[in-house]
Structures are given as C-alpha cells and as structure tokens.
C-alpha cells in the first residue's frame, strides 16, 4: 500500500483569495458573509450569502477556455493554479506524467437557467452559444480543468452533496493508496450565483439574521437559525510518497484515514448513527488512537438539528477525551460541494501554523455542544493530527484524518 501525501493546496474563498489571506482570516475570526439585497428582490426568504468576486481570467485563459468555464469552475481554476504552484508541479511535469483529477461539484444552475431562458425567448437552441453545454454538466469542473491543464489520469466529478469535496479527497486517497494512480488533483467547487440557491432557500434552511450578516452563521450556538450559503474553490493535490520524493516536492501532510457511510434515513434530516459510523471508520483506517487527534473541523453548518447530531456523534466517539472542535463555517458560511476540500485546507493552515481557528459567534452552547471543547477565540496551540467531517443531503457522510508528515 502506498502512503498518500498532500503536496499542494490552493484556495479561492469568501475569507480570502489565496492561502495567506485565508490564514489571516482564520486566525482573526473574519467573516466572509454579507447581505445581497438582490436576493430579496428576487424572492429569497434570506438575502444572506458568502460574498466573493469572480476572478478576471482574460489573459490567464484563452477565449475557448473561458467560454466553457462556469462560475465555480473559475474558482476551482484559481485554486488549482495556486495549488500547482506550491506543489512545484509545472506543465512540463504534467505533460510527462499521468496526473488525475477528482473534484466535488453537485450543481450548475446558472448556465442551465440562462440557456433555457434563451431558448424560450428566441425559439432557437443555437443562440444559447457554444459554452453552455460544457458549463451546464455536473462534470463541468473536471471536464474543464482536465482540458486546461492537459491532464491524462483519472477524470471524474464527485457529486456527494455537501460531502462532495471530502469524498473527492477520500476516493483519490484510496486510488493512490492502492497504486492505481500517482498524483491526483482533488478538490471541491461551489457556485454562489443567485440562481443556484433559490430552492434551498425555499426550505427555510437559511439564517434570516439579516441585521447582523457576520453573526448569522453560528454553528453550535443555541440561538442559531440556519445556515448561510457560500462558495468558491479549493484544491488539494495528493500523491504517493514515492512520487513526491522522486520529484522533490514539498510534503505538507499525509492523508491517513477515510471513513464513509450513508444514513439510509431521511433525505434532508441528518442523524447521529450515520456520521458516527464514518467517524469510527476513519479512525480505524488511520490506525490512530483518538487521543492523537488534536483538532476536529466539524461539519456543523449552523442548523439546529445538524449541529446537535454532530455534537452527539463526536461526543459518543471521543468520550472523555476532548479535542478542540470548531466549525470554520462560522466564518465562511456553508461552502457545500466545496466545503469538504476547503475545510481540509483551513485545517492544514492551522496545523502548519500552530493555531486553532475560532468557532465565531458561539455565545451560548446548547446541551450537546456544551460537552465539546469549542474555542471561540483563536488558540495558539500546535497539533499533529486532525479529523475533518463532511455530511450531505441523502445522508452521505465522509470523515478524513490527516497528519503532519513523519518519515
């Protein structure tokens, strides 16, 4: 079995458009949430959203590449550029080796809606233009990035709801561990468009604390009233230890455990048992004692039921041992398809820089979160191993365990 190491990370998010900016935001508990009045006019119950500018890609990508790339693909591209750079992996290396891509993405709303609007109005499908089909497909991110970066390895999109990005890393880890691929660009991307969140808003799942946008996402807090949708792109490059050593790559950390499960239960309401099984499986796969896990990046999205059930699952598995637990969604909002990958990056930045990011807006714990060790201010403390949880609609669960690299 191969050891699987992380050699490159890159991020384009609402709390920073590169690793340095994100690290600063994490340490200082800076929120990326704002109020979008257009959403209210459009009919949303909540106008709260992560705020993120789209990157200017003219000059970086040619016309054909830009025409085919949707919003979340742009974010994924920016994150991947940064990840490749700090992995010291250039195009010449990619051209000579089989590099794969597994990226989480589970919707492409805006291009679909825009295309149908044009067809309805013009009664002519040609007038949709050439890029729409490539922007509209579930596999749009991997389809586009594999062409842009001329990748020749595995090429698949992972659609696993809000655990997509985490499963992408987990499945990549399994492929490399088994020797089927040496290097895989993993990650997650999430659209933020006004067209992408309407039906989710319709479930009354979003916070309506519109008077205080930066306080709206408050995982584990007794007075939480729902999640805040957010998005961006996050790339985690994983490769076999042998490959990393052979090309002299910087090794950031090692992926040592992946646990997955399905609740087999309600389509939207999470439970305790499913996440608990994913947690336990990841710990068994990693072969570590729970006391070695210094930090848990919780999935906690700021919904009453979800946070409470996760707190119970963590409490049951970890018992009297109380590792630090925080939900970076308190700052970012819920990055959904991207979250599993971005939260690995947030945790890696903490591990590399010896701090634990705060769970901002936690003012009054509820009965379950009160039993966890959740910091509300940054803690200057190093740790060697962390666990990252991601759960999604349909009851899909993923837990990853990542450790500082030791030879």
């Amino acid at each position, binding site marked *: 079995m191969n050891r699987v190491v992380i050699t490159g990370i890159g991020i384009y998010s609402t709390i920073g458009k590169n690793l340095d900016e994100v690290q600063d935001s994490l340490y200082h508990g800076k929120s990326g949430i704002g109020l979008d009045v257009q959403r209210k006019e459009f009919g949303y119950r909540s106008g709260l959203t992560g705020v993120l500018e789209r990157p200017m890609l003219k000059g970086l990508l040619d016309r054909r590449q830009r025409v085919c790339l949707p919003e979340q693909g742009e974010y994924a591209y920016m994150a991947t550029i940064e990840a490749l750079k700090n992995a010291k992996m250039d195009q010449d290396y990619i051209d000579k080796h089989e590099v794969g891509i597994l990226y989480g993405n589970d919707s492409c709303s805006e291009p679909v809606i825009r295309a149908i609007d044009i067809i309805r109005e013009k009664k002519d499908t040609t*007038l949709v233009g*050439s890029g729409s089909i490539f922007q509209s497909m579930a596999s749009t991110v991997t389809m586009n990035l594999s062409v842009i970066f001329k990748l020749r390895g595995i090429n698949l999109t992972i659609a696993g709801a809000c655990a997509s990005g985490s499963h992408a890393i987990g499945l990549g880890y399994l492929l490399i561990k088994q020797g089927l691929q040496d290097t895989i660009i993993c990650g997650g991307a999430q659209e933020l468009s006004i067209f992408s969140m309407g039906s989710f808003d319709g479930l009354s799942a979003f916070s309506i604390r519109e008077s205080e946008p930066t306080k709206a996402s408050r995982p584990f807090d007794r007075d939480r009233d729902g999640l805040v949708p957010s998005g961006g792109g996050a790339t985690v490059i994983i490769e076999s230890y042998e490959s990393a050593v052979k090309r002299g790559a910087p090794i950031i950390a090692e992926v040592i455990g992946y646990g997955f499960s399905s609740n087999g239960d309600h389509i939207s309401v999470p439970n305790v048992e499913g996440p608990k099984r994913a947690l336990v499986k990841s710990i068994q796969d990693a072969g570590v004692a729970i006391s070695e896990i210094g930090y848990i990046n919780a999935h906690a999205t700021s919904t009453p039921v979800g946070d409470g059930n996760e707190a119970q699952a963590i409490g049951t598995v970890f018992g009297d041992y109380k590792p630090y637990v925080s939900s970076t969604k308190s700052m970012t909002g819920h990055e959904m398809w991207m979250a599993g990958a971005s939260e690995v990056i947030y945790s890696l930045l903490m591990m590399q820089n010896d701090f634990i990011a705060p769970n901002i807006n936690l003012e009054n714990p509820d009965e379950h979160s009160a039993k966890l060790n959740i910091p509300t201010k940054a803690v200057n403390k190093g740790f060697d191993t962390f666990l990252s949880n991601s759960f999604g609609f349909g009851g899909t669960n993923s837990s990853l365990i990542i450790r500082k690299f030791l030879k």
Partner: protein
Amino acid sequence: MNKEEIIGKINKFLVEEFEVEESKILPEALLKETLEMDSLDFVDLVVVIESNFGIKVKGEDFVNIKTFQDFYDFIISRVS
C-alpha cells in the same frame, strides 16, 4: 445602416468576441483561419450576428464564406 456601418459593426464584434487584432481583419484575409475558428466558434458567431443584427443564420450559411469580404457581403445581403 449603410455598408460601412455594417462592416464597422462586424469588425468591432469580431475583435471583442474572438479577440483578434483589428489589423488582421482584412477583406481578402481568410475568416476561419484568421479567427482560428473551430466548429464550436461558428455557434458563437451565429449568436453575435443575431445579437448585433437581429438576424438568424445557420451553420450551413457559412459553407461558401471564405474571406472577410465574403462574410461582409453575406451579412449586408441579409440585413438589407
């Protein structure tokens, strides 16, 4: 709209949409080669023609269009 205005409008959208240098747009130059167009790009050309002139053209209309002048003549005939 007279012929010069139509040609000016065509050149403007070709520069903007296909990112070609204006100096390369010459009446006798080959349209497809100069714009480095593949089959997908012709779809976008149909879209910009419709949005600029309000006329719907089809892919097969381009079969006999080789040069920019051919393209200008085709649009002028359709617009008028």
